[in-house]
């Protein structure tokens, strides 16, 4: 997979990082580095998550009770902190997904209005 140059990568939209993290953890517990890689890989390297945003976000989500953190050992036999979704986190993910599609839909209507009088 060719890597887009840095300036073609998209900065994350304000407020979407929490949702992306929750969504990524639906696949199972993961450590911070793994979450960053997963978001990058699933977006075909278009989304770049800065470590400086990722870790504070993870801690914020733990504080709110949406994630739980536990120390474990990575595939590479390295001690790492793993994050997993809590029940409250799953509920939150559904809410955020819902809101996200509403937002995309709303913005889509403004940007690409249906020509009037058709249908």
């Amino acid at each position, binding site marked *: 997979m060719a890597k887009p140059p840095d300036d073609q990568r998209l900065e994350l939209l*304000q*407020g*979407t990082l*929490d*949702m992306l993290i929750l969504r990524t953890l639906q696949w199972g517990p993961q*450590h*911070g*580095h*793994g979450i960053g890689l997963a978001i990058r890989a699933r977006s075909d390297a278009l989304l770049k998550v*800065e*470590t*400086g945003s990722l*870790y*504070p976000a993870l*801690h*914020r989500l733990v*504080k*709110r009770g*949406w994630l739980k*953190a536990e120390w474990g050992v*990575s595939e*590479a036999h*390295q*001690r*790492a*902190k793993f994050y997993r979704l809590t029940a409250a986190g799953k509920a*939150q993910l559904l*809410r*955020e997904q819902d*809101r996200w599609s509403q937002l995309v839909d709303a913005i889509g209507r403004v940007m690409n209005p249906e020509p009037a009088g058709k249908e």
Partner: protein
Amino acid sequence: MRPHDDDLDDEIRGHLAISIKERIERGEDPASARLAALKEFGNLTLTRDSMRSVWRYGWLDAADALGRDLRFALRALLRARGLAATVVVTLALGIGANAAIFSVVRGVLLRPLVNRDEDRLIYIRQSAPGIGAENMTFSMPEIGDIESRATTVAAFGDFSTVDFALTGLGIEPRMVKAGVVNGSFFDVMGLHPVLGRLINRKDDGKDAEGAAVLTYRFWTTALNSDPTVVGKTIRLGVRTATVVGVLEPSVPYPTDTEIIANVVTSPHHLGATMVTRRTHRMTELFGRLAPGATVEAARAELTAAYAATRAARRGRRRLRHRVLERREPDPRAVGAPRRRARRPRGARRRPRRAAPDAAR
């Protein structure tokens, strides 16, 4: 529930270790894997501080992503005001301000640093959060201001990068990335040569001879550790320089370069833009603490000095504007050239202050 500071360090260390391991498995050599992982991670201290502050402050309610956009708009408004600029002083090689985070980096680098008394070495940047300018390098006039007022810092070293076309040394002509430094840089950084000498204060100034130091990596890889390299003449773009020495193996900081040369090798560094333009910020600034001075003392002093020079400059600028305004011919004055179809007085000037005032 709040994680202990050690816990945060462990988490960062784990991240770096995994990232380094993956790079090595992909075929990178351990040294460059470590550096790349650190570089990718970005500012360790800042990240750690924001992780900590999550637990310290009550964060606004979660689901409020749109609220964040509103705050963004507010920030954009504030930007117009140009909020207080400040100077940032940290321990250089800790890539951060305290011993704990330093041990994280050192633990990952897995080797002692060669820099003499590295805990006396500081790294200085400037920030103006109000205009979205964080963690900026300096212009030479700004560095002059800081240097002339500091007593807690015994010596300053500056470093900027240029690309040179390098010819000579019996290798193919090539573009090299070079550091351009002042004569106290290596002394401030506490580094030594393995061959010859490093750049010193005699290499300062526009009348000095061109002098270049090769980094250890460049010397070993491109020149096969040629022991006769010292004293040879090289061409760097339009200028010539003598290879005066080879630097010991060290963390390539602040940037990885192939050679490090004195100011006279770079026409740009001698030019008016570099020397006089206050906004031409391309230079990294390091300092070595004066005996007995602490990082905190240096931070306090440099912050105050920085604020004072900025305030003084603002004052001068206002004065200059006032003088200029007075010199403009008054169209009502007898004999003054009268422009036809002049717009009503006052209409030309935009009410620039209106927005921030209204927002208050």
